[in-house]
């Protein structure tokens, strides 16, 4: 074989993500960013979390942020979790000299403005739900779910291997790079079919209107205030997923991955065929 053909064989460009997936991915990025930041704005209106049905049941909050004066008379921001207090001046409880839960650079709008925070939140909540339903419909109809996301028998067998590869930051090459690996599949399935539905359900559980749909359904989550707490926790779990996701994107080839999610084109590097 001439060398040029060999080089071509080692480097293939495939269509990694079809356009509907790319489009819905970026709509989701926008919606989730707005929802997180406007959600923190809403949290700041009452920067405490409770377990149970109400906030006034004689028990202290499980998480609370606020500001107070220390012995020297200086204002400090604090965060109290399960009775343990931490000095979080500058970030939580107090930032830029103002008493507030999360700092201005994390909330939307930046300053305290609950009414506008709610507008952003509920508009993009609809965007998230409509986009999510469109994604699920597409994933089923196009067999994206069955073909790309559901782990195969071989996937399940390779789970130990995949964990090891991830820990050593070793990434699939050649033929194996054409498909998601098993941990990737499980992470995506978990986020799409567990975390997002849970987040949306906890959000609905806070709506006094939807509470009347089937009286008592909110108690399944431990009550409205528990649902608020779980909504908050689930939001940060999603942030945790995004950190891992972006980390993996960076270490497994930032530009190649990014291009695959923008134009769809994904370059598969030289086949070492270490499996064969």
């Amino acid at each position: 074989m001439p060398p040029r053909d060999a080089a071509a064989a080692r480097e293939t460009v495939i269509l990694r993500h079809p356009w509907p997936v790319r489009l819905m991915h970026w709509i989701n990025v926008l919606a989730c960013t707005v929802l997180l930041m406007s959600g923190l704005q809403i949290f700041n209106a009452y920067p405490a979390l409770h377990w149970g049905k109400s906030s006034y049941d004689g028990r202290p909050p499980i998480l609370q942020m606020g500001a107070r004066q220390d012995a020297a008379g200086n204002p400090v921001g604090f965060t109290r979790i399960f009775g343990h207090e931490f000095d979080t001046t500058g970030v939580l409880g107090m930032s830029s000299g103002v008493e507030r839960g999360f700092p201005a650079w994390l909330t939307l709008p930046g300053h305290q403005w609950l009414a506008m925070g709610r507008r952003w939140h509920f508009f993009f909540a609809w965007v998230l739900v409509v986009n999510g339903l469109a994604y699920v419909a597409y994933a089923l109809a196009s067999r994206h779910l069955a073909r790309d996301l559901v782990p195969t028998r071989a996937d399940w067998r390779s789970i130990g291997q995949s964990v090891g590869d991830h820990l050593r930051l070793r990434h699939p090459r050649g033929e194996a790079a054409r498909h998601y690996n098993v941990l990737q599949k499980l992470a995506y399935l978990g986020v799409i079919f567990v975390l997002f539905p849970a987040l949306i359900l906890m959000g609905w559980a806070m709506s006094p209107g939807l509470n009347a749909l089937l009286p008592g359904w909110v108690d399944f989550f431990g009550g409205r205030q528990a649902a608020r707490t779980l909504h908050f926790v689930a939001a940060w779990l999603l942030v945790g997923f995004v950190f891992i996701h972006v980390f993996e994107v960076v270490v497994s080839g930032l530009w190649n991955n990014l291009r695959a999610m923008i134009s769809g084109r994904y370059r598969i590097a030289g086949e070492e065929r270490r499996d064969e």
Partner: protein
Amino acid sequence: MNEPSDSRRRFLQRALAAGGALVLSGCDRLSRIEWFAGLLASAEKLTYASQRLLLTRRAMAQEFSEADLSPFFRSNGTSNPRDPAYQALAAAGFADYRLEVGGLVAHPRSYSLAELKALPSRTQITRHDCVEGWSAIGKWKGAPLARVLEAVRPLPSARYVVFFCADPMNARGQRYYESIDMEDAFHAQTLLAYALNDAPLPIRNGAPIRVRVERQLGYKMAKYVMRIAVVDRLDDIEGGRGGYWEDRGYEWYAGI
């Protein structure tokens, strides 16, 4: 070797900070553009329509047991109206209080507190959800608004019920007001409440009469109600959006 990577890092940090600030200030600026804020607010119509589709007039807010009662029912907003006329009423134990009910009705009339208490009553232990995020559980007793409306007979053109309150909210003397649609007005749990936790309604919680609209947020449940008007439009009242907080950007439909 160190210098370029340091300056590159500094450049990246600055670029990130600048980019972040641009996005943030962009979003803050967007919030101040009327048509964009209006676009965001359009979600309220979708929420209202879908909740009205899902919830019939019979769909009841959850009711709780005595064991769930909050030890102290928090007061929010006005806790004692700074208004001489209201203070005079309160000093006399609301003996001279009259609730005016009028607008688009066949038989406008007024009710004394005793007359409201003489109407068939309803007692309910419900959860009060504030727009800020907290909840408190209280036991309310009052006259269903439906009984009062049946007595005054709203005209066919009636679309909203507006509550005008005694408490001045700002230096300009604008008073609190709120409004609900006829679906909520005739809902079984919508009360003109005069008792909280088996005691006369305290001033901090809205004495002598506060509204309970259990399928919406706390700010819909006006305190210190002095007058009720049945209307066919809201845009000619005060700021035109149907409530004191609505005029300041909050949703009129607060079922979410």
